[in-house]
Structures are given as structure tokens and as C-alpha cells.
């Protein structure tokens, strides 16, 4: 057996990745399996890096959330084992955390990170839109999200979590992805009206 041709991913790892990329009903299960599988990283962060339990949990869950996003979008290429790859994300996030702790010790205000979607807009238009986005009152937006109704809320959250209209149709038992798109845009319009009323 040639050791250099050994597959990088184990069957279990491949299973987890498949269930997340399929974006259907199995994704949630896949996310949970991924979280459970390497949850000992939390313990390691507490012992090795002397982090509090809360910080270690945040660090690990942010790692898993970021990994899920990459796996679902197909950016994980499987060139290394899932553990090695996750550990590199975990380590980078740990370095970020240290940096934030040393440079921004007194800051408790967290802003949302730049939207990935904005990256596709040309520079001039991006500046205009970014300035408007910066004016958003996130608290009010969050409050209004509760008022759009449970079904709308669930649909919009799935959309923001990277599920396609087709995936949502399967999960929420809609007939077609076109119906989901129409409903989703209606929900978004409703959210906008509620937000602008304030």
C-alpha cells in the first residue's frame, strides 16, 4: 500500500461533509456531528491557552460555524483531514481573539462583519451602499424579525444561512423553488415595511 496515496478523509468525515453539502434535512444532523466530534478542542483551549470556558466555547463554536459555511459553499477541498483543517481555523480565530483582547480591551461594542455579498459590487457603488448599511439599527431589525411571523422568520433565516430556494422548498414543504422565491421576497418586503415604520 502506498502511504502517500492514502485518502485524506475518513469515511466518517466524508459522511459529515456530505450531509452538510446536501443542504437538506440532513444538514442539521451533520452540523451537530461536526460540533460533537471535535468538542474536545474546547478543553484544549482552556488548558493550553488558559481561556475561560465561555471564551473557549465561543472560539470553538465560531470555528464550527465558519467551517459549516465553507463546507456548504464547497470551499473545503479536502486536501487535509477535517481535523487538521478545523484546527487551522480554530488557531487563526484564537490569534484573532488574542489580538482583539490586546488591542481592544475595553470595547464591548461588536459590529457585524462586512457582508460577503458586498464584495461583488464595484468600488464606487460599494462605498455608497456600505455607508447606508452602516446606518442600520441592528437591534430594531432583530425586533422586527420577530414580528414578521414564524414562517417568514424561519424562511428568511434559512436563506441567510446559505440554503437555496430549492433547499428551502424541500425543508418547508413548498411545491417549487419559484414559490419559495416569491414568498421569501414577500417576507423581506414585510420586514422592510416593519423596519421603516420606526
Amino acid at each position, binding site marked *: 500500500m502506498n502511504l502517500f496515496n492514502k485518502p485524506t478523509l475518513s469515511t466518517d468525515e466524508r459522511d459529515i461533509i456530505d450531509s452538510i453539502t446536501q443542504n437538506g434535512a440532513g444538514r442539521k444532523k451533520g452540523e451537530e456531528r461536526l460540533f460533537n466530534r471535535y468538542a474536545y478542542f474546547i478543553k484544549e483551549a482552556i488548558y493550553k491557552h488558559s481561556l475561560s470556558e465561555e471564551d473557549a466555547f465561543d472560539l470553538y*463554536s465560531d470555528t464550527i*460555524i465558519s467551517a*459549516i459555511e465553507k463546507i456548504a459553499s464547497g470551499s473545503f477541498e479536502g486536501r487535509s483531514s477535517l481535523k487538521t483543517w478545523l484546527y487551522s481555523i480554530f488557531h487563526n480565530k484564537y490569534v484573532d481573539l488574542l489580538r482583539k483582547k490586546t488591542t481592544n480591551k475595553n470595547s464591548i461594542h461588536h459590529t*457585524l462583519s462586512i457582508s460577503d455579498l458586498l464584495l461583488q459590487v464595484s468600488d464606487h457603488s460599494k462605498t455608497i451602499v456600505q455607508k447606508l448599511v452602516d446606518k442600520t439599527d441592528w437591534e430594531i431589525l432583530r425586533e422586527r424579525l420577530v414580528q414578521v411571523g414564524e414562517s417568514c422568520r424561519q424562511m428568511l433565516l434559512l*436563506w441567510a444561512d446559505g440554503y437555496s430556494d430549492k433547499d428551502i422548498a424541500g425543508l418547508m414543504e413548498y411545491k417549487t423553488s419559484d414559490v419559495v422565491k416569491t414568498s421569501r421576497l414577500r417576507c*423581506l418586503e414585510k420586514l422592510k415595511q416593519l423596519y421603516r415604520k420606526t
Partner: protein
Amino acid sequence: MEDNLEYIDDYFQRMLNAEEIRRFEQKIAEDPAFAKEVAFYLAAKQGLKAEAEKEKKERFKQLLSQQAPVVNIDGDRNTRRIWIYRMSAAAAVIIGLFFAWYFLFPGAASSQQMADKYINDNFTDLGITMSSRLDSIQTGLRFYNDGQYDSSLKMFEAVSQRDPQDYLPKKYAGIVCLKIGNYNKALQYFRQFENDDTLYSNPSLFYQAVTLLKRNQTGDKQQAKELLQRVVKGDLDGKEFAEQWLKKL
């Protein structure tokens, strides 16, 4: 208004053609009400994403509480002792292997160390002033210097897609990939401007060599050597390092 949302949604789902994209972006610049609609769409998605992540974290917290306690000092003592024995044995094996490897393949360790040193000395922080012509490049560099490599890479990739002729975003995307250990992708980016003869100083070959030395797979060192020889011969960017390194390889 719903029509506007559909139009905006189509743009961000990449369903518009080049001309429609141009008109869409022009409309943002010329129509403040439309720009506001676009901003709402993005803010809503951003806010919803944060909310979805918050819910996911809550779910993870519940999962964790169903597992054994994270910190269990008493239970850990025995495990720790076993681990100390295991670690000592592993350390002895590693030291043995290191010496065997060092004497059998002299230079293997040093070539990777040379690459490491170069990366640490030159790619820890990237100068923001290197390009003042593009907002996005500057933002990408700021992300890089803040250690936000994912956002930085996305930014450089987006600029590169918009302007495929420009070598700068490709160079930076390659550096980010090299920094995060995605060597194959780094090589792909560096190769893309290898033949760009409009550049006064082209670092493509030298960066490829650094990446190969860092990756250190079978055949990488030989390939890096050939690239470094081309750097010296062509008097290209990185020539001084190339000359020094070739003596050691």
C-alpha cells in the same frame, strides 16, 4: 417595491448579465432610493445571518451540556499521567526520526526554514500604501494585517474577478493562500501573472519557489531550484534571495 427586491435579489444571486450588472451598479450611484433598497437587502441578510448563527450557537451550547463536563479536573489526573508517558515516548520517537531525517536528507529542513523565515519577514504585514488606486485592495490588505485572512482572500478574489488583467489582486490572493497553508491555490495565483511582461518587476517565479519550498512535497525542492535559477538568470524580483538560497539547496 417588491419588484426592486427581486431585481436586487437577482443581482446578488448572480443572475444578471454583464450589461445588466453595469446598469444595476449605475442605478445605485444615480438613484438614492434604489441605493437605500440595496442597503436594506444587504443589512437584512447580514442581520439575519447573525441571528441564524446565534441560534446555531444556542443549539451547540445545548449539545455541549448533554456531553460530559468540559472541565473535570479529578477525572483528568489519571488521563494526564497516561498522556505524559505517551507524550514522552512520542517525543523520543520524534527526536530519533528527526536525527535520522536530518542526517539522511541534509538541507530538507533548512529549505523549509528558509521559506518560513522569508514568509515571516515579508508577509506578516503587507504595506497598505503599496496601492492607492483601489479601495478594495486597501480593504483586503487591512483585513490581512488584522489576521482576517478569509475576508482578505474574498476581497482580493472579488477584485481579481472584476479586473482579470490586474496582477496585484492575484499576487495578494496568492500571498494570503500561502499564509494560510493553501499552497496549491497559492501556486495557481502566482502562476497567473508569470508571463505578465508589462511589469517592471515580476515576483511570480520567486513566490512560486517560496511556496514550493514551504510545501516541501516530493519534487518540490527540485522545481523550486529550477525556478530560482530562472529568477537569477532573468534578473527578476527576489534575485538576491535566490542566489543565496541556491548555494544552500
